[in-house]
């Protein structure tokens, strides 16, 4: 048998493939992580404050305390992701040293670099990054992201931006599918996307990595909506632990994600969940307070 190879592109992309059809939940404590796992989450995202609190409290949002991350890793058997600030490659090094399973280079935290994202090829641990459109997604993949999520507008409980970003990405993929190579080069220029990745996306009819939806998903129907729009799975941040009954809502969102094209099941699981997070209409947020515009 040949030598074992670790940290390869296939194993980075492969873990994301194993997460498909699932729900990744934001958690801030080991206890919340257990609730998420018991509800059927396929992974958890460890962070210090959920996006709704970051938005409300302001200040600089950073990587979570390593003690917290380790407690969460010890509490569950499912993969544990954690967030690093955009461009903060030392936070990413720390998260890799802690042994987290995926790093989210996230606009939800305060960016550490307004020009450059992390060179993600340099790590053994895989990265997921946010995008609002195909060009942004392919730039991140070019830097080594092994998974993409559409950004939406985190901490709002308003799904409108998640829908906008998913529709934009899917629409752009449909548009490039019948293009000639010379036209693709022009589009690569327009979108600011690496040409080879754009060509690969056109040939596959999808991005070359798994694509989840994030930012504003608060109900089972929201999750199923994103799945029917063609994403591979969903991230739910504030939507669970800012609602009345997190355990029941989390389980309902998991079931609606699996049975996303079965309205009877979505209707059944949507009953008696208590109040969702109160929410904030994304349209009312001034641009400088929007999280999705962070990164490029």
């Amino acid at each position: 048998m040949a030598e074992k190879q670790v940290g390869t592109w296939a194993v980075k992309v492969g873990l994301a493939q194993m997460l498909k059809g699932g729900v990744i939940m934001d958690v801030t404590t080991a206890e919340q992580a257990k609730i998420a796992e018991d509800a059927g989450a396929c992974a958890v995202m460890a962070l210090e404050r959920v996006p709704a609190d970051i938005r409300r409290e302001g200040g600089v949002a950073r990587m979570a305390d390593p003690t917290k991350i380790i407690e969460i890793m010890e509490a569950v058997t499912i993969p544990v992701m954690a967030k690093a600030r955009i461009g903060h490659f030392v936070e990413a090094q720390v998260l890799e040293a802690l042994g987290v399973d995926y790093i989210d280079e996230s606009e939800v935290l305060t960016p550490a670099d307004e020009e450059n994202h992390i060179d993600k090829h340099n790590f053994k641990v895989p990265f997921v990054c946010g995008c609002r459109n195909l060009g942004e997604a392919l730039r991140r993949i070019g830097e080594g992201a092994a998974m993409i999520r559409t950004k939406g507008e985190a901490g709002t409980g308003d799904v409108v931006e998640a829908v906008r970003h998913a529709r934009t990405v899917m629409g752009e993929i449909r548009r490039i599918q019948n293009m000639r190579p010379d036209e693709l080069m022009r589009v690569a220029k327009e979108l600011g996307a690496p040409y080879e990745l754009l060509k690969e996306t056109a040939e596959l009819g999808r991005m070359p990595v798994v694509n989840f939806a994030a930012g504003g998903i608060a109900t089972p129907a929201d999750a199923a909506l994103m799945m029917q729009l063609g994403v591979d799975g969903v991230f739910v941040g504030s939507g669970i632990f800012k609602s009345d009954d997190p355990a029941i809502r989390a389980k309902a969102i998991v079931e609606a994600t699996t049975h996303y094209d079965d309205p009877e099941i979505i209707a059944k699981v949507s009953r008696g969940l208590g109040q969702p997070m109160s929410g904030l209409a994304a349209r009312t947020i001034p641009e400088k307070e929007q999280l999705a515009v962070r990164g490029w």
Partner: protein
Amino acid sequence: MKIGVLALQGAFIEHIKVLRSLDVEPVEVRKPEQLRDLDGLIIPGGESTTFGKLAVEYDLIEPIRAMCEQGKPVWGTCAGMIFLAKDVGRAQPLIGVMDVRVKRNAFGRQVDSFEADLDIPALEPRAPFHAIFIRAPFIESVGKGVEVLAKLDNGTIVAARQKNLLATSFHPELTNDARFHRYFLERVKKNG
């Protein structure tokens, strides 16, 4: 030939693509009625705890167990292998039909996920099989009647068969090598 792929969560589309490349049109299984008339079933990789919750909630455990007991070929990859095992060292919902003890996340966390070439004598033509292991389990011990199909160099068991039941720690659906899927389909044909 009617093959089902359990589609509760995980890498089920990857299995479906390989089966289609072998001219088999599989059925996605999320509810018990979708198991009816199947000649074989694949349980994909994903999170075994997630499958477990959903399989209990949607009454899939008993009918899948019945299929295994009727002698229909059932193949579990990674989380699917955990799901088939009798013993995984902790309490979680399982089909629990294969006489093996499986250790979850046995190689470590994601940074320990790896690729390696395996010698699998059961596959034809015989040539190294490039295997991808992702937060993978392995088989700690096997009961009577379980045949070991593949081991790592250090003797770790990563594939096994017990009559109609097949289990692999790794993901043949993530490579372009369809030999393992052909091996499974052969067993379905023989069983029919």
